């Protein structure tokens, strides 16, 4: 069971979430100009990374908001949680070692004192501060 740190609600069991597959797949800019090969790529081809993978998750039983996550597909370690619309953070340095307890993740299960007050409809693209590291033992 993954323990996932929702940027709005704090860390919750995986059962509260839905998986959304690869993140940062833009809708084609000029759909009318695309050939069959390009359509196939857009519709059916997604990265299947072994290692750190940027993916989307939905906190379906909680705040019902989408967010992005960097997760290692081999160890299942969650390396970062960051808002939709922001670029993939650089976590070449192991996240846990670098940030220690200074995680900005809404803590534990409760009042989430540090939860960023991002609006659901307009998450500012500059709010890199809400890119969060996962708490210890985020995966089992």
């Amino acid at each position, binding site marked *: 069971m993954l323990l996932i740190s929702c940027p709005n609600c704090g860390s919750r069991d995986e059962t509260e979430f839905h998986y959304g597959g690869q993140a940062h797949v833009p809708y084609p800019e000029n759909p009318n100009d695309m050939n069959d090969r390009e359509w196939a790529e857009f519709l059916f081809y997604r990265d299947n990374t072994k290692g750190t993978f940027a993916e989307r998750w939905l906190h379906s039983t909680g705040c019902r908001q989408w967010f992005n996550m960097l997760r290692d597909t081999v160890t299942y370690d969650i390396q970062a949680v960051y808002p939709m619309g922001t670029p993939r953070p650089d976590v070449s340095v192991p996240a846990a070692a670098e940030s220690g307890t200074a995680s900005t993740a809404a803590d534990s299960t409760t*009042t989430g004192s540090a939860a960023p007050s991002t609006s659901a409809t307009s998450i500012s693209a500059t709010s890199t501060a809400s890119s969060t590291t996962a708490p210890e033992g985020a995966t089992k």
Partner: protein
Amino acid sequence: MANTAALEGINGLRDIRRSPASHLTAALETGSVQGTVVLKEGPFQTMAGVRVDPRSEQGSRIAAVAGGLPARCGEVSGTDSVSVLWLAPSEFLVVAPEEAHDSLGGDLIGSLTAALGDAPGQVVDLSANRTTFELSGPRARAVLEKGCALDLHPRSFTPGTALTTEVGNIPVILLKTGDESFRLFPRASFADFLGRWLLDAMREYASPEVP
């Protein structure tokens, strides 16, 4: 929006309205262990689903009517008679006693709708969407812990906090109303399941503790 509230004659239907777990009333009574853990279905409530950006002007107008909008997960704001539960950064559940409903002489839905005006957002009468269970007693937390993965210890889950989560595998809003009392808001269609699930989880406390 909120059409049901405006329907003339809805008061005539009030008497035949049945709550989603009313068929369990007797079972809840027998299953409760006085002084240990007690389960009841709560009275009807007026509930409004509100979607609004809290930092916007319309957000401030709605906050003025509702008695504030909670800023983050867990927070509950409101007045003596109205609670506003945080569901998401721009989604809230306004809960008030049944009499607050416009069809019964109140004006909650209407005044929220008016506060939003034409601005982007949503006020929806959700009074029939969920029922409530009141679970209380020294064992109430232990009962919930059988089916809820959150940390319910009083050190982190304090009275006046509400969280959207799962209890017994179904989605609920869980409000801590007192040191040993909780209110659960399941959707109406899950009321039967959750009622029976809680009864089952309470059963062991009817027997003497095995030392």
